């Protein structure tokens, strides 16, 4: 009995040191920084539980979009800088669902339903393209995202939307830049089983929804197709020799990633309360990319815990720095810190020698 305990203890210690080694220095620094912020928060007059709630809230908004990174990293397509493409599908789903007259929770379900075919079609095209240009995925993904966003800018103006809640009041055509979701799916997930204790509020529904998707992703990665996908990412030559259709696996991963991005933006919108169109999706890929990297993922390896840790750390810093820094030194340096931390993290990941050889 004692022996087994010892053994498990040893195992635990080993696992801790392994964890630290795998965690990496930049992550450790960021985690320590966040911890410091949490400790400092009460001293500078910020309410601890409000801060925690804010962090958890923002976590729940963004986690799905970060999860969207996982499939493409697994199949060796690199970081999905083309996330805006999926976001566009989500936006199409959201606007069409409202246009077709759905309200309340139903509009959210319908938004997902409508977004899905768009995500599959766009994702398939995108995946096909990425298969043509293996090795240069990330740069092209970035610009595919940009092109699609700027293309949709024209479309939002030209498409014949009619719903008065969405179009410009005066012209009667062309979608507004922000559309309020009140009466549609504003906080529709967050309200499910929401917990309020004092200043602490937890959007249980959104978290559960994320947990469901994350579990689905986990299960998928452990299925036969999922392992084949991982094999494609870690060693394409070996995978091909084992009879796996590399291009098909990559295509599947891109579609999956695009679809998750579409769901991700819908979840984000229900938390945020607004649909943001036009240039808004432009730089949405970068926070998601840096979040998963902060969580311990690399350019070709990512797990579900990476997603959870990364989103929590990133969103924690994003929510905490403005309040804490502001009251500490009376300078709002949060923007600068956010940019330096997130972009620095991406740079770090891109320049790691081990990943540079594919």
């Amino acid at each position, binding site marked *: 009995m004692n022996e087994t305990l010892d053994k498990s203890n040893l195992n635990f210690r080993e696992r801790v040191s392994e964890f630290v080694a795998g965690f990496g220095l930049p992550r450790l620094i960021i985690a320590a920084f966040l911890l410091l912020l949490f400790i400092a928060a009460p001293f500078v007059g910020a309410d601890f539980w409000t801060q925690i709630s804010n962090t958890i809230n923002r976590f729940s908004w963004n986690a799905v979009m970060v999860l969207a990174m996982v499939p493409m990293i697994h199949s060796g397509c690199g970081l999905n*800088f083309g996330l805006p493409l999926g976001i566009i599908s989500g936006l199409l789903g959201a606007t069409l669902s409202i246009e077709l007259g759905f309200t309340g929770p139903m509009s959210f379900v319908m938004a997902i339903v409508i977004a899905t075919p768009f995500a599959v079609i766009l994702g398939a095209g995108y995946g096909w*393209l990425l298969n*043509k*240009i*293996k*090795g*240069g995925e*990330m*740069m*092209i993904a*970035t*610009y*595919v995202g*940009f*092109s699609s966003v*700027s*293309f949709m*800018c*024209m479309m939002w*103006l*030209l498409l014949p939307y009619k719903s008065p809640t969405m179009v410009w009041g005066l012209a009667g055509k*062309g979608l507004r830049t922000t559309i309020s979701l009140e009466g549609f799916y504003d906080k529709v997930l967050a309200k499910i089983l929401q917990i309020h204790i004092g200043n602490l509020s937890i959007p249980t529904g959104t978290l559960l929804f994320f947990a469901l998707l994350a579990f689905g992703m986990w299960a998928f990665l452990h299925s036969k197709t999922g392992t084949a996908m991982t094999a494609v990412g870690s060693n394409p030559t070996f995978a091909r020799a084992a009879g796996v259709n590399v291009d098909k696996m990559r295509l599947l991963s891109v579609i999956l990633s695009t679809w998750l991005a579409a769901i991700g933006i819908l979840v984000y919108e229900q938390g945020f309360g607004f649909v943001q169109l036009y240039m808004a999706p432009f730089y949405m890929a*970068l926070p998601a990319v840096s979040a998963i990297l902060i969580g311990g993922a690399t350019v070709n390896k990512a797990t579900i815990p990476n997603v959870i840790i990364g989103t929590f750390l990133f969103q924690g810093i994003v929510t905490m720095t403005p309040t804490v820094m502001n009251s500490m030194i009376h*300078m709002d*340096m949060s*923007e*600068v810190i*956010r*940019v*330096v931390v997130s*972009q*620095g993290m*991406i*740079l770090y990941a*891109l*320049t790691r*020698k081990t990943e*540079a050889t*594919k």
Partner: protein
Amino acid sequence: MKNNGNGKKVLNFLGNNSVPILFILICIVCIPVSGFSPSYLINEIVTRMGRNIFLILCLLIPIMAGMGLNFGMTLGAMAAELALILVSDWQIWGIPGVVLAMILSIPFSILLGALCGKILNMAKGREMITSYIISFFMNGVYQLIVLYMMGPIIPIKHTTVKLPRGYGIRNSVDLFHMRQCLDNLMAVRIGGVKVPVLTFLLIGLLCLFIIWFRKTKLGQDMRAVGQDMDVARDAGINVERTRIISIVMSTVLAGFGMVIYLQNMGNIATYSSHSQIGMFCIAALLVGGASVDKASIGNVFLGVILFHTMFIVAPKAGAIITGDSMIGEYFRVFVSYAVITIALIMYETKKRKARSRAGQQLQLAQQEEEAAANE
């Protein structure tokens, strides 16, 4: 038979120059629709040529060294802005101000460029995405300096430059006393079109420099590195150093270019002037028919003319065709991004084809060798 060969030639020509041809078509359609007078158009294009060509030329050097499109040219733009902010706070006016800003931007550019080159050396094979992220990262650092350090640490005296809160730089810094001083000196009017001769002289000098530089030892080294890094290394070229030098040169030139650009604009948008400049310059270069691994001075000139003609006429033409002025605005943004996307895709597919061809050749050679050995 001969006809067929000619047809193929034409097809090849069209294929190789598809982007410029497409742009010529867009311009041909949009110019009459927009209804701008030719003299207005020519005036605008000449102004924009003077403003932008220098900046775009700086992209040629990293392409020579095989490092792709230097999205990190933004760093040079930041260096120039830092220099200009200081110069306008010191109240140095006119041409001396421009010269001083250029000189002052050199140390900043060298520092940033060397850093960028070092990082890019760690990320070989993915230079473009890395340089792109570097520009974002450095934008954060730039904000840290401009928004928080200018004032308390770097002395800034004038309230026309400084934010009223006592530190940080205003959203827009007026360069009134430097405005177009370079363009106006020696400016010549030809039939109502103002030609900034001095600016064009500077551009001409840079062109000559680039032509000369290609022939120097360092230029040859760079091309060798661009062709094949391993071969270059075997030939005794210090690959890492050559790559860093190419990025530093590009950054320094971008700094000069940005000074020229901003003296023409007449004010600095402190937090946004640099953010888009890289994208537009790269788009213009690609419109001129350049690719990721090959670009000439001719591409730069053609690109600027075509891209900016599109840029000027698109909003008006869009407004007339669709009845909404924003459509044209979005259209030209979309076109800029689409051009870059297409160029990147063409480059990667070409690279992949070349790689598989090389692989096949290697296989063939091996088979032959084996056959020879068997005999």
